[in-house]
């Protein structure tokens, strides 16, 4: 106890508030955008990174003074934000609620890859001359950088307040946030409002990027998603569209992290953030500043899946496709066979995600977690001596159970909250794997995973491995198709279309969501386990957020809920970049552009949603 009391709590509080100011800057932008455009801007983290690099260019490459750098970063950020609105959001014209969210994921990937191409993938220092004095208060101290960040945060908040409440455009923004249709009727130019909001939000995000760079004297092109997630946690704490709440949420998150690190160590930092997020979503989804039970809003129903009839492929074509696929190894190009094996593993995972995201309508951005659970389960069990064949099946069953249990908290969430919740769950799984060193070997990963071998039969060389995976894809595609034509298929779709109406007719939506997660978890766990045996090495980052996003892209490309579509899309998305080297080099750019074009021009996917 004394040891805990003896910690430098003042310093932790200061660093918590500084960190919190940065989170607040991110969160304010996210809350503004959520309020006006009713969407979570997943590109906001990439804007943060762009801001950091514009800052580096101004402050280091050009040697400009700090105030000028901040100004230029704000202008640059605003320009990027306005561009995002014009290019990615406006053309969608409220197609379906999930479309703009997915579009911002695409934009984020494109921006990140652009930064990578210009500045390289490695972090770089961002030295900014600061006075050397520190103000000693009690046992702690405050430095000029702390004050700069905190003051910048306060000024930004004040300017924003002035804008929202004392300008005409600000009033238009508030009106649009309340009711965009009514605002439009009154002659408010919704496009201008949306653009202004994206510009302001992105200016704040970009400034946050510069400030973090100065604070740590380092900028890193790979932190976009992490920082965006922090901003998201902050707005969930503060209440999604609540701008003052976002500031409070940011500061609270900063303090929680700072104190948490003090007590438990730095490697748990993100675990706190995501645990807080999950608890908030479950206990107080309207944020801690919300009051009482509110009038039930018109429930979000049935617009996730674009209304379309799936294209039914004739049976002979499917049989022909399987035969052609089975003949791939005879082409005499082992590299192609390997690429196809990998693509089919994505297909297997894609089949499972299309059930969850398409048929049941739970847009999951954490599907990689299921693959990771399957991979670790099979790897650890077989290293401990279990035969690979049994390891695979047990791992799949474990994934079905654990995956369903982990996803259970997200079952009661609706709309965008499902995306946030599954994202948080996915990150928590990765962080538990990273920190549970005694079992998972932590950041070092698991080595020497036995090769694929089923009861003495070799499945590790290129051709047999390919056939095994192809066989599994065919089997699970058939099983899932059969399920979809049973009472389960219509029950799942009914839950997706209108959960309230389904419950009114006696459907226990949680139970049926659980069934879907169980079946999908089995499939995904198997895909992860086979991947582990193929790679012979896995770590916490083998199945990461990019994997989840890639799988979601595959599922949307194929047509949400469409089994054959998921397989076709997996071959296109995971196979093509490997065959064409130029695409592989700019893979993220390719995925981002593909996602953006897809949502814009063919939201129902190649083969139609089912």
């Amino acid at each position, binding site marked *: 106890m004394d040891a805990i009391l003896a910690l430098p709590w003042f310093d932790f509080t200061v660093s918590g508030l500084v960190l919190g100011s940065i989170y607040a800057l991110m969160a304010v932008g996210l809350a503004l955008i959520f309020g006006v455009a009713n969407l979570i801007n997943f590109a906001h983290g990439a804007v943060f990174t762009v801001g950091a690099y514009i800052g580096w260019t101004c402050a280091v490459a050009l040697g400009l003074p700090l105030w000028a750098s901040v100004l230029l970063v704000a202008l640059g950020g605003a320009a990027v934000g306005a561009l995002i609105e014009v290019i990615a959001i406006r053309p969608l014209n409220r197609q379906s609620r999930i479309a703009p969210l997915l579009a911002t994921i695409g934009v984020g990937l494109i921006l990140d890859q652009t930064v990578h191409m210009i500045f390289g993938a490695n972090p770089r220092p961002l030295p900014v001359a600061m006075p050397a004095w520190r103000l000693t208060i009690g046992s702690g101290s405050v430095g000029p950088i702390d004050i700069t960040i905190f003051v910048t945060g306060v000024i930004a908040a004040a300017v924003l307040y002035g804008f929202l409440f004392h300008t005409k455009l600000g009033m238009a923004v508030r009106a649009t946030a309340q009711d965009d249709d009514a605002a439009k009727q009154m002659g408010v130019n919704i496009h201008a409002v949306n653009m202004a909001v994206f510009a302001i939000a992105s200016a704040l995000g970009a400034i946050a990027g510069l400030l973090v760079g100065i604070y740590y004297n380092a900028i890193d092109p790979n932190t976009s998603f992490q920082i965006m997630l922090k901003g998201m946690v902050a707005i969930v704490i503060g209440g999604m569209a609540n701008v003052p709440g976002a500031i409070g949420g940011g500061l609270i998150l900063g303090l929680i992290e700072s104190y948490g690190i003090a007590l438990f160590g730095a490697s748990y930092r993100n675990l706190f953030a995501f645990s807080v997020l999950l608890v908030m979503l479950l206990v107080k989804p309207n944020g801690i500043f919300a009051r*009482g039970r509110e*009038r*039930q809003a018109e429930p979000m*129903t*049935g617009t996730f*899946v674009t*209304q379309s*009839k799936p294209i039914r492929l004739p049976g002979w074509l499917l049989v022909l496709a399987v035969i052609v696929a089975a003949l791939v190894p005879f082409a005499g190009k082992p590299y192609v066979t390997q690429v196809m094996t990998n693509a089919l593993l994505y297909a297997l995972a894609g089949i499972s995600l299309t059930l969850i995201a398409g048929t049941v309508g739970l847009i999951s951005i954490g599907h990689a977690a299921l693959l990771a659970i399957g991979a670790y389960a099979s790897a650890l069990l077989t290293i401990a001596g279990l035969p690979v064949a049994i390891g695979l099946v047990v791992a799949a069953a474990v994934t079905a159970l654990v995956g369903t249990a982990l996803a259970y908290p997200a079952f009661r969430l609706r709309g965008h909250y499902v995306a946030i919740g599954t994202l948080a769950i996915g990150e928590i799984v990765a962080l538990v794997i990273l920190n549970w060193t005694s079992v998972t070997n932590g950041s070092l990963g698991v080595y020497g995973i036995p090769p694929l071998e089923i009861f003495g039969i070799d499945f590790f060389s290129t051709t047999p491995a390919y056939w095994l995976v192809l066989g599994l894809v065919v089997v699970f595609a058939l*099983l899932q198709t*059969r*399920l979809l034509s*049973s*009472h*389960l298929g*219509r*029950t799942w*779709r*009914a839950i*997706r*279309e*209108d959960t*309230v*109406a*389904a*419950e*009114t*007719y*006696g*459907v*226990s939506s949680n*139970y049926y969501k*659980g*069934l879907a997660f*169980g*079946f999908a978890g089995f499939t995904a766990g198997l895909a992860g386990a086979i991947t582990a045996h193929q790679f012979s090495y896995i770590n916490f980052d083998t199945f990461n957020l990019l994997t989840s996003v890639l799988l979601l892209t595959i599922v949307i490309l194929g047509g949400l809920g469409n089994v054959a579509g998921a397989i076709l899309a997996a071959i296109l998305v995971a196979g093509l970049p490997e065959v064409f080297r130029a695409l592989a080099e700019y893979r993220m750019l390719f995925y981002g552009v593909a996602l953006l074009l897809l949502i814009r021009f063919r939201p129902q996917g190649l083969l139609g*949603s089912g």
Partner: protein
Amino acid sequence: MISGALLTARGITRRFGGITAVDGVDLSVREGEFLSVIGPNGAGKTTLFNLISGQDRMDAGRVTLDGRDITNLAPRRMAEIGVARTFQHGRVFGNLSVMDNVLIGCHTRLKAARPRMPVIAPVVEILRALIRPASVKAEEAAMRAEVREILATFGDRLTPRLDQPTYSLSYANRRRVEIARALALHPRILILDEPTAGMNESETAEMQGIIADLKAEGRTILLIEHKLDMVMRLSDRVMAMDNGKVISEGTPAMVRNDPKVIEAYLGHSTIGGDEPAEASLMPEAGLQTAEG
């Protein structure tokens, strides 16, 4: 308390912030009775129905069905004990076919496909859906045959469109699908929330015929409706609401001639002059009474 009441509600109250949307409402329906609830927009009718059918939670009050307390029961449980409802704005499953929409109404009755077993039920349910033993197939076939029968009561409105997704149907047809779905539940009490809202005259007349048939079958029906003509013709009893309270209750003729009801519909005549505010809502008979 009316003897032999199937559904009884006492003192139902629901507040939204400072507004009391439903204020101490009592209601009871006998087996086979047809009760209509009328009232101007915002009177609290739909909120009342949402509370009775479990869509919303009441702040005070008690509801019983056949003597069993069903206050604030989850909608799913309500369905299981035989309460079926339609929604004011129509809530069909847009991407599902007409057949599948109505089959969802049979969900509470599925037995072969939905095992009642502890712990292993999920695995068994998936396996049964995959393997489809004879019992599951027979049950599914029987349900489908029954759905066709239900749909046949709507003439050739829905039967030719059995496999079409409901988003492609006309508004009136979607409302018909909703009623078919409710009937597939084999409800003990059928709650209809403005079944003819948004329908033209001939569609309304057709729907009125169908509801009259349902009444003739001896079903217990709770109806919210704006079209008073229809209410007056079909109801055994009518309840009028305004500002969350019951202002009149009794036979159609009694309620129709109650000055409080007329005032609620026409606005306060001392303020509004003699121009009826919502004349379109009043049937001919009601208007004459108001003027006379």
